[in-house]
């Protein structure tokens, strides 16, 4: 449901401005969302000055620079640092993406804001609670379902059918798309969101899967599927260049196909 104001205690306030590194000539200002449930109170925007000559080339490098040189209490998730695991998804300069593949050269001028993914509860600082997101992913049963007994070796698939999965299987579940979707902001408890629906389509069109009808049954709902209004934020922010909106449109096409 639309909520035009932040819940009580959620509006970020002005925070601490950390000192500039000494002797640095190439400084850049970052405003980072800070929140700690142990400390209580509202979240705050802390200001950091980063020596860009020492920080590396990616936003994740900036966060490491701050954590190692300025403020060790800054919390963020990261793992692979090469765009595979999706752990470091966050909102950078107003756009959801993953910090490890977002380069300085892609940033706009001026102060850069870094915040956790929108619309999800915050565990700490840049770490969102993605429990609901994962549960919605589980709802679409993202695995092969068959009634035919398992073959001796493997389920076979033609090269053409395998190609159908390109642009779908690459999703890393970073949640950038889902948490950028206004429809998901308003109806996140009912609407499955772009990431889960992209995966739903990935299994709907898998030539080996034998549960297509049941999968469509589980999706056919004014909220779970049809709350997508093709806003396209999902496709715009996906760090892997995928297009969940297109996948959702194709699910709708399958729905129409089976009643006409």
């Amino acid at each position: 449901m639309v909520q035009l104001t932040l819940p009580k205690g959620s509006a970020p306030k002005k925070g601490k401005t950390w000192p500039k590194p000494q002797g640095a000539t190439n400084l850049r200002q970052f405003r980072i969302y800070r929140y700690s449930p142990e400390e209580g109170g509202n979240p705050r925007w802390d200001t950091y000055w980063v020596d860009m000559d020492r920080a590396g080339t990616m936003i994740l490098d900036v966060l490491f620079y701050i954590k190692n040189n300025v403020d060790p209490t800054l919390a963020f998730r990261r793992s692979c640092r090469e765009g595979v695991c999706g752990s470091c998804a966050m909102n950078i300069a107003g756009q959801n993406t993953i910090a490890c593949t977002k380069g300085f050269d892609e940033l706009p001028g001026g102060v850069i804001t870094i915040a956790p993914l929108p619309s999800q509860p915050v565990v700490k600082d840049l770490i969102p609670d993605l429990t609901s997101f994962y549960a919605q992913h589980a709802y679409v049963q993202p695995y092969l379902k068959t009634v035919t007994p398992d073959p001796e070796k493997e389920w076979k698939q033609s090269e053409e059918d395998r190609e159908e999965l390109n642009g779908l299987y690459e999703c890393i579940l970073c949640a950038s798309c889902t948490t950028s979707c206004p429809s998901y902001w308003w109806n996140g408890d009912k609407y499955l969101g772009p990431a889960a629906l992209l995966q739903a389509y990935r299994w709907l069109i898998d030539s080996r899967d034998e549960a297509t009808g049941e999968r469509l049954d589980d999706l056919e709902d004014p909220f779970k599927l049809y709350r997508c209004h093709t806003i396209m934020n999902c496709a715009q922010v996906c760090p892997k260049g995928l297009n969940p909106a297109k996948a959702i449109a194709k699910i709708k096409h399958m729905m129409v196909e089976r009643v006409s």
Partner: protein
Amino acid sequence: MSSHDFITPAKMARGLGSAKSGTETHIRQRVSAIALIFLVPWFVYSIINAMSGDIVDAQVWAAKPWNAILLILTAGAAFFHMRIGMQVVIEDYIAKTGTKSALLILNSFACIALFVTVALSVLKIWIGAGV
């Protein structure tokens, strides 16, 4: 501690289950949109032309069979499409169940009433002209 603290994520994601509906509404919205792609430009063009004369000229124009038929079709497609669109807006923006239900019913009544009003007005002009 809130009353939802012990609700599991799976329970939340599954909710009340799939309504097994929505496709018909999706088709109706798309089909009415296709109709409006043709009807709205005709309607706007015709209204601009009708405004160049007086009320009698406009009545003569509306009394022509094809104009009357297209006017009623335009109103039908527009209010039908509007009802579906408004329903989504109400569902998205109104939180209270009672208010939401009341507005959804009002939306249906208003769209039907508007269509009947337009249709009867056009028919009155058409029949009144003795065509």
